[in-house]
């Protein structure tokens, strides 16, 4: 079922500060959507508004065509997985999965059948008689997902479900959640602060900051066409280079960017992966050059710092072979879609928006 917010705002009881300000969006049915943003951006709050654990101060929430704004969590029929999994510690795995069904007064035989099916789906069917305390973090997570799916929810909500797992398990569970979502086809909303996680798992990403939506699009669109500087900085690793433009920089871009846009631009953002070396020592024919400052190698990754008109920027496209005399400027070029110009309001004004077809 799709989820729609219309002019939703939420303020604390004292009405002084808005946690969310006039949020509008439509999350499509049957897809996996990530709510992404730094701590305190309002992503968990948005999730709790969808779950019904919170009520908005203003605005309306729709599931499909149905206005659910005043309905509580139970009536909305959502399933939810919490950061701490929130399994009932005194119940076995089976009892945990059955709990929502028991609350719905389902017949016992049917309940056991459904619970067993779900346990198989999430691969915990061998652990049914164990208590949550005897399971590993990943298994607890699986049980939590099974419990959330037990009553065939209209929407599955996951609140930072992977942040309590170690790095390797996180990748494994990420793929598992993706698989379970695909197998069940349930509309899934996933909250995370980890952009890498969101980029890997989501069909759609909604980036939030300070209680407003920054951008809502497919992962590749968000990476290739960030709406503003915040999004550009938030997505991508290493973090995008940002440079306060001075006249030297502007001169470099004269041939690449129309004059009026260049005049409005105040900030330049360049992805580290689009700063590439040129195998030539002729700096004149290439607009960009800088002095190599330092190079670090971490396993297969090499990052190089270059002073570009005095501003240090990072590239990960220089391999150790491109070591040069670090007094002499080295030329580099920029990938066409790898740099952005922002105006004084931090909105991206270059490249101009062009429709981008993204397939996944």
């Amino acid at each position, binding site marked *: 079922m799709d989820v729609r917010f219309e002019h939703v705002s939420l303020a604390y009881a004292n009405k002084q500060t808005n946690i969310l300000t006039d949020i509008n969006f439509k999350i499509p049915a049957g897809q996996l959507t990530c709510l992404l943003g730094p701590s305190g951006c309002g992503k968990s709050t948005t999730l709790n508004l969808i779950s019904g654990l919170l009520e908005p101060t203003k605005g309306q929430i729709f599931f499909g065509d149905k206005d659910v704004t005043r309905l509580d*969590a139970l009536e909305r029929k959502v399933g939810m997985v*919490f950061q701490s999994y929130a399994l*009932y510690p005194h119940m076995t795995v089976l009892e945990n999965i059955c709990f929502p069904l028991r*609350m719905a007064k389902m017949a016992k035989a049917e309940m056991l059948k459904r619970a067993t099916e779900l346990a198989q789906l999430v691969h915990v069917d061998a652990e049914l008689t164990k208590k949550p305390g005897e399971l590993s973090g990943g298994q607890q997570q699986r049980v939590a997902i099974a419990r959330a799916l037990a009553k065939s929810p209209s929407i599955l909500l996951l609140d930072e479900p992977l942040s309590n797992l170690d790095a390797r398990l996180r990748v494994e569970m990420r793929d598992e959640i993706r698989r379970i979502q695909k197998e069940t086809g349930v509309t899934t909303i996933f909250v995370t602060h980890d952009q890498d996680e969101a980029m890997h798992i989501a069909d759609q990403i909604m980036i939030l900051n300070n209680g407003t939506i920054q951008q809502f699009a497919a992962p590749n669109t968000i990476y290739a066409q960030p709406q503003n500087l915040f999004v550009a900085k938030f997505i991508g690793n290493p973090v995008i280079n940002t440079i306060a433009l001075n006249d030297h920089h502007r001169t470099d871009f004269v041939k690449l960017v129309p004059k009026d846009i260049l005049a409005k631009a105040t900030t330049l953002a360049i992805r580290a992966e689009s700063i590439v070396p040129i195998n030539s020592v002729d700096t004149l024919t290439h607009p960009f050059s800088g002095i190599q400052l330092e190079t670090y190698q971490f396993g297969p990754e090499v990052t190089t710092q270059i002073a570009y008109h005095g501003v240090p920027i990072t590239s990960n496209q220089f391999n150790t072979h491109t070591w040069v005399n670090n007094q002499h400027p080295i030329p580099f070029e920029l990938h066409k879609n790898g740099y952005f110009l922002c105006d004084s309001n931090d909105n991206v004004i270059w490249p101009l928006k062009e429709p981008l077809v993204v397939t996944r």
Partner: protein
Amino acid sequence: MNKRNLTKGLSYLILFLGALIMLIPFLWMVDTALKTAPETVQTPPTWFPKHWQFNNFVLAFKAAPFITYFINSIIVTFLTTLGQLVTTILAAFAFAKLNFFGKRPLFLICIGTMMIPGEILIIPNFVTLSHLHLINTYGALILPWLASVFSVFTLRQTFMSISDELYYAAKIDGSSDWNFLWNIMVPLSKSSIIAIVILQIIGSWNSFMWPLIVTNTDNLRTLPVGLSTFTSDAGTEFQLLMAASTIIIVPIIIVYILLQKHIIEGVSKAGLKA
């Protein structure tokens, strides 16, 4: 003997001495119960009776309607404990997990009443109950003890330590507050609840002053009040008093031993990660 054995030996010695200090009054009680009347007041006191008087138990039991007292004690202890358990669980849940108008001031007032010594409440409680025409009824024995701020406070702390996410999870799973309380909160707080029950049973079983004041007929007296039979103007018959005390303390010891297992279980469970 190496250092570790020495430390171990020392700690056992300290534990042994502690246990001895705890046990001596008990042993003295049993010891006195087996003495003759003159021997109980003899100086210097004797450690062991010269002539073992097992008959004291029979005499003590016959001296007053102890069966009635026993039944009364059981009724009063059972009902106060049960009633207090229900009010405690409900109030602790409200104070720990629900949001309602005036929650904080109400809680502070409740906590404030813990600073009032129990003795001060005897007269107002007595006056209230006499206005309600409840003096010399089971009502008088039970009613004032149906709520305990101390128990509410203790259980509230336990309830607050249970994560809010569990509460929200249960909400989403379709559980009402009521179901959540009895299906999740209470089982998870078993050890605290048992501790509260034990304290209440002991307190209720041993309570003396209040039953003495609000009852004036034999058929409503409880065991501790019944023990005053052995004290008269002519003095106290210590051997019979101690014999009776020994008898009435047995149920408490049994209850304690039975529930003690649960306490240990509760504590060891709480140690597992949840």
